[in-house]
């Protein structure tokens, strides 16, 4: 089998003219089993009928599998290249495989030898050996600091802290010793690697001999199951035996068939993108089309209609203390407890020690209960009349934006305060509310034009040459950042309201075009590309996203910055102002065009230049907005509105009820109370989406399009479906399943593509094996017992 496999591989690799030599060799080798099967068929049958052969094969499969577990297996999609004559151990491609092999084997050897009581491994320097005493010493000092933490956060948090610390310290020490074991035993690993490579022990499961064992087992089970003919197997007492063994046969047969015909690969898609090819795991690009065994199959294309990565909503509870400058610092230098949220969840803190001195045992001083949780929420803005109150001086209005067909596409409750927001039309036009003393002042407001910019970068450390810590983002804008005595040149290369990354035909990551003028695109993923030049001439080009992702492994990690897209001043086709005068009159005008100023009465509809229309519902000269998160009823999974919670907090000083929303603005809540020891406690509650852990779920909505019918709304949709991890979508025998997402690119979805006609056969085998096991091990003994009892 090994020889046939080798010749087959050579035949595939050979030039067109040289293939026949190997094919002749394969035919010659095939004559041996064929000849045996034809001329000595009784002996062949006897061989497979032999129980010893069957059991020995099973044992050999077991032993080979043990080998597969004990030797680091190569990635089938990236096989180890064969050694080349004249190349050193550092042969490109092979050496990387060796390093992975060495690390895995050293990791195993470390645990095996330490398990056997060998504390000091031969050849490994003493200073690299795990120092249990040092770890215990560190843990002892840590345990002394635990009682106040147990008092504040409870027993479970203290246990978690100790357990993860012990494990973390141990992991760190073990890594160091394993690294030493890798380098100090390098000759041994290198020899082992080469021998394992030669004997296929690094690719056991795809080796020809392992496949041959399964083949022998298949024929052995087949011959032995039906050795007495079919009729005896039809007796009820033998049903379990028949079904279980038929199941095993189908699993093996389906596995073989699948391996012969399967195609596996990946499809990188962005929302709205259409692809008719996908990339196989070996790098080849093939059309989306069922590989037909007979006849012809129809190619098709796939469009990603929607994608969302839903993150977990978490609540962090941070005890803080205030320094003289008013800044809040964590009271405990720890990762704060991070609680996942669900309605009815109760949390308790600040227990305090009992009279006997046992910490964390008394009734909690701070109790929180999540009384409501909206996984997707919207802010309900309620325009409130401020009357003649002295504190509020902003004007307010409730507006509706209608599309050319008269449908309401946006609703807005705006005030004239600087951070009160505005309406962003689908066409890119923006509308905001401004307070004006009278009509003349309103006209003057329309004349003043702010300077266009994309947004602003804030540097978290260092100062710009003008002493500020920010830089306006405009095309080609430059600045100099002073940081720790060094001067970096900062240059804005480009900014975009929607960053989408994709793979070029050459496999490189590249920015996808927007498809519409920048001024019309809503800022769904604003980002700026910055060029940083160090004093020594080193250059880094970095994407900074408003959503907080800063790229991996920056060249200058000391430069930390945030970016904020300017939603009003960024390029726009048009800007309009609703102006409310001190007597409550509302006016509408286009920025830069005072002559466009018109009266806007409640209930009136006025046209904007782009076909959209604005309707005033209500205007107030003195108003404030009450904002309350409410559940976004009926929202589908792909709506990315942030979650919100309603919290009931109880402290010794009373009860409080409030909302938190994971939208960046309403994430924090400060609670203060006096502790048992008389000191003031300050607690910060932080409700946000957890982007450090795995997401809650990824989901994609896909449409199968008839090939050649385009990608827009005119394309012929053959079928649509949703995929999530654990739920695939199948079209014409090709299965699509959710594989990947990129935190830096929220519109990207990585979709696995599989064609495996053996799956159904294997699954049938699984069901038969299950049924056979139940019959043989459960039903049959119970029936026997019953019959015996009856007799």
């Amino acid at each position, binding site marked *: 089998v090994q020889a046939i496999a080798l010749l087959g591989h050579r035949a595939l690799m050979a030039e067109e003219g040289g293939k026949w030599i190997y094919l002749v060799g394969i035919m010659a080798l095939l004559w041996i089993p064929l000849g045996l099967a034809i001329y000595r068929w009784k002996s062949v049958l006897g061989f497979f009928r032999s*129980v010893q052969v069957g059991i020995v094969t099973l044992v050999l499969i*077991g032993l080979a599998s043990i080998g597969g577990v004990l030797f680091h297996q190569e990635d089938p999609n990236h096989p180890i290249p064969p050694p080349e004559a004249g190349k050193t151990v550092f042969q490109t491609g092979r050496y990387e495989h060796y390093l992975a092999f060495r690390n895995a084997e050293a990791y195993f050897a470390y645990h095996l030898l330490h398990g056997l009581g060998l504390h000091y491994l031969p050849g490994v320097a003493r200073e690299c050996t795990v120092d249990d005493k040092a770890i215990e010493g560190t843990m002892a000092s840590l345990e002394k600091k635990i009682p106040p933490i147990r008092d504040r956060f409870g027993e479970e948090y203290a246990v978690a*802290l100790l357990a993860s610390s012990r494990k973390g310290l141990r992991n760190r020490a073990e890594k160091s010793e394993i690294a030493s074991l890798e380098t100090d035993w390098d000759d041994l690993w290198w020899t082992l690697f080469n021998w394992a490579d030669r004997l296929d022990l690094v690719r056991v499961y795809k080796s020809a001999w392992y496949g041959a064992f399964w083949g022998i087992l298949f024929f052995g089970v087949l011959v032995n199951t039906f050795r007495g003919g079919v009729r005896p197997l039809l007796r009820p007492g033998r049903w379990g035996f028949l079904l279980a063994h038929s199941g095993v046969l189908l699993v093996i047969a389906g596995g073989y068939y699948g391996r012969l015909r399967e195609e596996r690969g990946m499809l990188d898609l962005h929302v709205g993108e259409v692809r008719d090819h996908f990339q196989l795991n070996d790098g080849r690009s093939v059309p989306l089309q069922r590989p037909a065994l007979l006849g012809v199959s129809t190619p098709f294309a796939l469009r990603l209609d929607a994608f969302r990565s839903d993150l977990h909503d978490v609540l962090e509870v941070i005890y803080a203390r205030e320094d003289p400058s008013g800044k*809040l*610092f964590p009271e405990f230098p720890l990762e704060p407890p991070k609680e996942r949220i669900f309605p009815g969840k109760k949390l308790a803190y600040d227990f305090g020690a009992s009279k006997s001195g046992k910490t964390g045992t008394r009734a909690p001083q701070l109790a929180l209960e999540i009384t409501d949780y909206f996984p997707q929420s919207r802010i309900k803005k309620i325009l409130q009349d401020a009357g003649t109150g002295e504190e509020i001086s902003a004007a307010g209005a409730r507006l509706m934006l209608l599309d050319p067909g008269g449908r309401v596409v946006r609703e807005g409750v705006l005030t004239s305060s600087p951070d009160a927001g505005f309406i962003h039309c689908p066409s890119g036009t923006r509308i905001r509310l401004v307070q004006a003393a009278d009509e003349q002042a309103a006209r003057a407001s329309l004349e003043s034009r702010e300077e266009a910019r994309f947004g602003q970068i804030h540097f978290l450390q260092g100062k710009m040459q003008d002493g500020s810590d920010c830089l306006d983002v405009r095309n080609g804008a430059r600045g100099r950042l002073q940081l720790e005595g060094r001067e970096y040149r900062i240059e804005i290369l480009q900014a975009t309201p929607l960053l989408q990354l994709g793979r070029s035909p050459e496999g490189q990551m590249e920015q996808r075009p927007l498809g519409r003028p920048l001024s019309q695109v809503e800022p769904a993923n604003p980002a700026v590309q910055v060029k940083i030049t160090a004093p020594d001439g080193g250059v880094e080009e970095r994407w900074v996203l408003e959503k907080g992702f800063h790229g991996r492994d920056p060249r200058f990690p000391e430069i930390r910055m945030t970016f904020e897209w300017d939603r009003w001043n960024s390029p726009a086709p048009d800007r309009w102002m609703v102006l409310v005068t001190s007597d409550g009159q509302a006016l509408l005008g286009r920025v830069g065009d005072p002559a466009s100023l018109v009266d806007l009465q409640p209930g009136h509809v006025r046209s904007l230049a782009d076909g959209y229309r604005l309707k005033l519902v209500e205007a107030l000269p003195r108003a404030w907005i009450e904002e309350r998160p409410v559940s976004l009823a009926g929202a589908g999974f792909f709506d990315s509105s942030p979650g919100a919670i309603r919290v009931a907090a109880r402290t010794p000083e009373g009860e409080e009820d409030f909302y938190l929303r994971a939208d960046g603005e309403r994430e924090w809540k400060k609670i203060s109370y006096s502790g048992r020891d008389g000191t003031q406690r300050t607690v910060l509650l932080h409700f946000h989406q957890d982007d450090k852990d795995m*997401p809650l779920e990824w989901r994609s909505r896909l449409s199968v399009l008839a090939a050649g019918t385009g990608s827009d709304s005119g394309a012929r949709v053959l079928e649509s479906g949703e995929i999530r991890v654990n739920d*695939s979508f199948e079209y014409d025998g090709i299965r699509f399943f959710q594989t990947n997402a990129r935190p830096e690119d929220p519109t990207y979805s990585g979709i696995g593509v599989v064609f495996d006609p053996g799956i159904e056969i294997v*699954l049938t085998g699984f069901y038969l094996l299950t049924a056979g*096991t139940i019959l043989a091990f459960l039903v049959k003994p119970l029936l026997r017992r019953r019959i015996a009892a009856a007799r």
Partner: protein
Amino acid sequence: MNALDYRSLIQLTLVLSAAGGVLGLLAVFARFLMPVFASRSRLALAGEGPAVAGSAPAAFGQKVLQGASRLLVGLCLAALVANVGAMVARYLEVRHWPAQTMYEVLPLGTCTGFLSTLILYYVLGLHRLRGIARGFGDLFVALLLVGAAFTLKAVLGLDPSGRPLPPALQSYWFSTHITAYMFGYFTFFIATLATWLLFCFKFWRGLLDPGYEVPRRTLWAIGAFTLIPVPFGVQGILLGPGVLLLTGLVVLAGRRSPGRLAWLDAWEKGGDDFTWKIFLVGFPFLTAGLIQGGLWAQEAWATYWGWDSKEVSALISWIFYAVYLHMRYVVGWRGEKSMWILLFGGLSVYITFQLFGFLPASQSSLHRYTDMSAVPAEGLLNPGGGPVN
């Protein structure tokens, strides 16, 4: 801490199983030592069947021991109830099937272990035994309870943080696949313990009973096997040399009784059948776990078998038991020979369940969801840091 939260209920389960274990061991020693004292009072001994006949104090002693035996089963049942309560409490705390971290999986395993013990107690007919023969059943249950107590003690030292389920684990298979495996694994641990107990008795009888012949290589093999679990830590030491020592004490005590060790003959004759019945309970669950894993994998990764190191480890364990099954059915192996396969099968299950993380390919396994990110509390060790916001 709430009295009905997960941690408290695990502590309660620990107390109940530890109490059961201690009570069981005391009852076992009392049962084995009673005939010694009874012989001095010229009391007759019955192996299986009616208890020690004779004087009122002896009859009272038998009644007490019978009551202790029932209490042992009662404590096992109480531990099961508390353990089930703990799992329900944990479900309410984390809002998913509590089987993600070892802090959750091990108590799920002990829960299935208690259930399996109670089922086997009746399937194996241990409740019908009387006299010294019942002592073996009590020893068996007591050791299982001690094992569960040690496991739960270890659980209380683990990181109790409830972690959210990653997308790959959010499937209905998550509960059934892991629970079936846990039931299978813990039932096979029970089979391993039963086999090991019988081997240990054989070892001591071979050494101490002149009329009992055991091949020398069997004695060497049992002696060597004692050392195999030692590297696995405290539980390994208790299971290997610990059980060997305990059975040695029982045999020493038994040697002084009038019937000597005749009662063990019945156990040895039935030992093969005893372990076979345990196997019959465990194997369908192991098979179900394996098949459900394949069904789940083809839903999540569109491949029913990915040759992941955990999958292969589980397959190796399954092959051990498939070989055991075929050796008995087809080749006709009975007794000691087939029981050796059970013993190594138990070892394979333990490696798959607990030692898998040390295997070469485990670091890149798709089945490794936890304990990769443990870091020490740097803030406490090296204080300092910036403002909150």
